[in-house]
């Protein structure tokens, strides 16, 4: 019996490996075709999103604002991430990274920045999210939490969801802040520029307790970036930041 068992086991193994190898050499669909179709789909979704949200791409030469944002984008680069920078006409003081390597800057956050260096810090922070693929982590975590708590439609389940997701999100924000600090140092910009921006945001923000917030507490972030002494940046830009802001 044992011999027959081994024989059957080997038959199954050979069948599995044989089928796998067979389909590698005689593919039903070529992976290149699938990849191309994925890329086309991704491009299509991106275009639709840009159209729907009325995002404007920073690199285009149409306005002074987009030209200057394009200049900032070229400064904040990373060899591993080819990203696209977009402008959104929203008043909300916010910037965000989207899957498909997109960074969106709202009008609100641009108006809040007194210097282009502050905005560079914001772009670097969002680039950190893209570099560390936080949106994938977030998606996997959200899915896992949903699955684990599936069926618990109770308030306890909802509270657990909010707390765990926010805690995870705060870690990601912290990592992105660290990346921004590193990037700003590489560009000889003091991370203290971001502390200045956060202070302005702090005054305008609603006081949300940290455990309910997806970002680390603003006080902590301000202290983190304030550790670095403020030094005037020596970077030179081809645009006048005040004029750019006035054009909004």
């Amino acid at each position, binding site marked *: *019996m044992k011999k*027959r*068992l081994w024989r*059957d*086991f080997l*038959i*199954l193994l050979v069948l*599995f490996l044989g*089928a*796998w*190898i*067979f*389909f*590698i050499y005689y*593919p*039903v*669909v*070529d*992976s290149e075709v*699938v*990849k191309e179709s*994925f890329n086309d789909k991704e491009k299509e979704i991106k275009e639709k999103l840009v159209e729907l949200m009325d995002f404007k791409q920073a690199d285009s030469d149409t306005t002074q604002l987009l030209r200057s944002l394009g200049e900032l984008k070229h400064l904040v680069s990373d060899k591993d991430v080819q990203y696209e920078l977009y402008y959104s006409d929203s008043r909300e003081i916010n910037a965000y990274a989207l899957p498909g390597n997109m960074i969106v800057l709202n009008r609100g956050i641009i108006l809040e920045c007194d210097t282009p260096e502050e905005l560079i810090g914001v772009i670097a922070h969002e680039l950190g999210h893209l570099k560390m*693929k936080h949106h*994938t*982590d977030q998606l*996997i975590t959200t899915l896992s939490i949903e*699955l684990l708590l*599936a*069926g618990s439609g109770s308030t306890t389940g909802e509270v657990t969801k909010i707390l765990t997701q926010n805690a995870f999100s705060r870690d990601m924000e912290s990592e992105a802040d660290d990346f921004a600090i590193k990037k700003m140092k590489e560009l000889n910009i003091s991370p203290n520029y971001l502390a200045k921006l956060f202070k302005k945001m702090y005054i305008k923000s609603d006081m949300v307790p940290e455990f309910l917030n997806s970002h680390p507490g603003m006080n902590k972030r301000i202290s983190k970036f304030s550790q670095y002494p403020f030094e005037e940046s020596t970077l030179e830009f081809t645009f006048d930041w005040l004029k750019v802001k006035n054009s909004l």
Partner: protein
Amino acid sequence: MSTDYYPIQQPEDLPAREREDAMGGYFMMFASLAAGLPLPIINLIAAIIYYHVNKHKSRFVRFHSLQSLLSQLPVSLLNAGLVVWAISFFKYDFNFDNTFLSYLIVVILSNLLYLGFSIAAAIKARQGLMYYFLFFGKLSYEIVYKVKEEEEQIYRNNPPI
């Protein structure tokens, strides 16, 4: 070492209740669907629970429950491998190539085969018949029907010294 096997029950000896219990094991693959979850591991957990609940019933029920459970193990592993591999594309930028695509096809085929054989086995079990999967059928038969030499150990109470 004993090579004796317990006799296999014939359809006419099996009450309807036992046939239904034997058939039930193969329906554990739909457990996650019933719970509304896309989690293959739930099927496996359901099959394990089902086997443990039914293992003290007749050998016929035990055989079918065990065959269902054992055959689900490799399918669950293959599915889990697919999920991990797919996630790693997004996380670590793995190359999407023919090796992955062919693995995906083989996993889909394995699931379809497993589904087909399970339905066939469930029908047979309902009819009070044995149905042997390749490898898993023999393995389950070996575990359930082989006569084991009972090692009876007699415990005796002794004074403390």
